[in-house]
């Protein structure tokens, strides 16, 4: 097989991992660090995408700039949702959180359906979406490159924030022992609020990216939630850096299979989840 094809597959795979990381990092914060199982994460993502779209059609705002609005907007949305609902299930078992957030997901999805209709929407008239740089027969997509860079920055930033910064450590503390946290002077509820809103914000950034490279429908949420969950779990709960590695592994595998196997494109989901499955099993066997 043509070597440049394989090389191209590797490059595409590496870059594609950026999107996965973007989708997952917020969830990694929510579930891995704060310990809130958020089934509506994909909906934050979807909302972010449609806000970007709306800003574009109504005011012709370029997605790059709409970040400045979408990110805070989702932070706000996250905060509101936390105050009105999540706040009350912190102590509740994981399953209750799942039901609650799943319900929220349905609400958000059908609201979006009501507002934007069921057809996929697309942001037109942005030149950079289809720009690719050719380096020795290999093409590198501008947007993928940027999203890859952004995701690395976000993940690295979040990791540093959580391990080094006081606020970051506060989030972990609150998640690990609420009583202990308040006994060292933390307003547990406020810390959670910030953390949850932050995870929504991160989802929003991913949403902007999706609005640029794809044409979202209101129903994309759940699929992304599940993939994000898988990546976060593969990375290991609470392991922010792991999100990058996990995303890289699955994206690379998808891309290689899609290239090397005839009709491999249809296997991408199978590959994705097969890796998740095998990795989890293998890990569970290894540790005693």
């Amino acid at each position: 097989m043509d070597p440049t094809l394989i090389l191209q597959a590797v490059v595409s795979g590496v870059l594609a991992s950026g999107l996965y990381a973007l989708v997952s990092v917020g969830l990694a914060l929510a579930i891995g660090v704060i310990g809130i199982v958020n089934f509506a994460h994909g909906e934050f993502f979807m909302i972010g995408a449609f806000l970007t779209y709306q800003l574009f059609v109504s005011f012709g705002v370029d997605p790059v700039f709409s970040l400045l609005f979408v990110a805070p907007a989702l932070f706000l949305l996250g905060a509101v949702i936390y105050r009105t609902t999540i706040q009350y299930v912190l102590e509740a078992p994981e399953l209750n959180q799942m039901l609650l957030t799943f319900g929220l997901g349905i609400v958000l999805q059908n609201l979006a359906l009501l507002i934007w209709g069921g057809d996929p929407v697309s942001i037109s008239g942005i030149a950079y979406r289809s720009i690719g740089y050719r380096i020795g027969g290999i093409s590198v997509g501008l947007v993928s490159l940027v999203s890859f860079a952004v995701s690395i920055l976000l993940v690295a930033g979040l990791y540093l924030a959580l391990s080094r910064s006081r606020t970051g450590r506060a989030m972990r503390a609150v998640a690990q022992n609420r009583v202990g946290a308040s006994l060292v002077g933390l307003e547990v509820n406020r810390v959670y609020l910030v953390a949850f809103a932050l995870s929504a914000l991160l989802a929003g950034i991913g949403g902007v990216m999706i609005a640029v490279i794809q044409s979202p429908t209101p129903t994309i949420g759940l699929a992304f939630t599940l993939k994000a969950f898988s990546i976060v779990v593969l990375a290991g709960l609470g392991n922010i850096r792991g999100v990058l590695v996990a995303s890289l592994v699955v994206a690379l595998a998808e891309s290689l299979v899609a290239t090397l196997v005839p009709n491999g494109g249809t296997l991408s989901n199978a590959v994705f989840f097969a890796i998740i499955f095998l990795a989890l099993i293998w890990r569970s066997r290894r540790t005693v």
Partner: protein
Amino acid sequence: MSPNAMNRVRDLLPVVLFAVALWFLPDLLRAWSGRASVSYLSLVTNGLGLAVLALSWDILARTGQLSLAHAAFYGAGAYVTAVLARLDVGPLWLGIPAAGVFAVLLALGLGVVTLRLKGIYFAIATLAFTEVLRAVVRQLPTSFAGGSAGINVEPLFRPAFDPETMERWEIAFQRNEGYFLLYAGLLLLTIGLSLWTRRSRLQHAFTAIRTNEEVAGVMGVRPARMKLLAFALSSLSVGMLGAIHAHRVGSVIPEGAFSVETTVFALVTPIFGGLYTTLGPILGAGVLAGIEETLKRNLADGYLIGYGLVLVLSILFMPRGIVGMVRGVARRRRAARTDTPPDPATDGTTDGSEA
């Protein structure tokens, strides 16, 4: 009378009543609403299906294993019966028990490899399993499993039409009655399995494993064996459900048979109704199906927004599901009347687990 005997009566009586009610329901509906009973039967049947799914899921959840693989058992069942029917081996109905058996084997296989996984790790592993299985089914030779186009499945019931004695809608009624009774039977079977785990020593083993597997082991419980048993009990009815459903809707396609909705509602319904109980998942299914249809009939667009809100509010105001809430009220009543402390026995059962 020994407490066990008491329990047995306490359980069996309502079940028997429920069974009798189900048996007469079609004719009652018919007598009450005439031809409209046709669609009512379909709706109730859908509800029963949800109940079977939910209760089965709950059985496994009692060991602390949050499965996202029930769509896999369901879809596998659907395909087993479809393929058997196409290969034309034996009578049509044979596919249903076969589907059940296959689902159990599949579940045991999955159970063995996921034994050591806990909580969300287990959940995601089972989800991944479902997705992979769907992909595999798609890739199977078209001549065998129909590929992405799917397979047609013969209906189980083709009531003969006799213009003299009956109206056309009565054909539909008889067909729906047939499926209704199958679903009802399946639910009763599942109830049986569920009650067995609740009333036998399995109840202790399951709860112990759910709360702390290590301590359970030191108490002499065999966690692996118990979990696998739960897997088997939890997949049997679901496999058969998928099979019957396939006959009912005339075809199977990978997207439909292994759909995420199945997975999700298998878990949403018991939480809504009340976890780790027999009544909870069934109530949950009934109420949820009822609410959805009511909203659908009374609201125009966006009725699902209402549906989502119901879920949200339910968990905020009934954290232990319907059953938990009812028991809570009952207990407060008792406490109000006499000063006897609350009966913790009922308390424990609806208690959420820390997964």
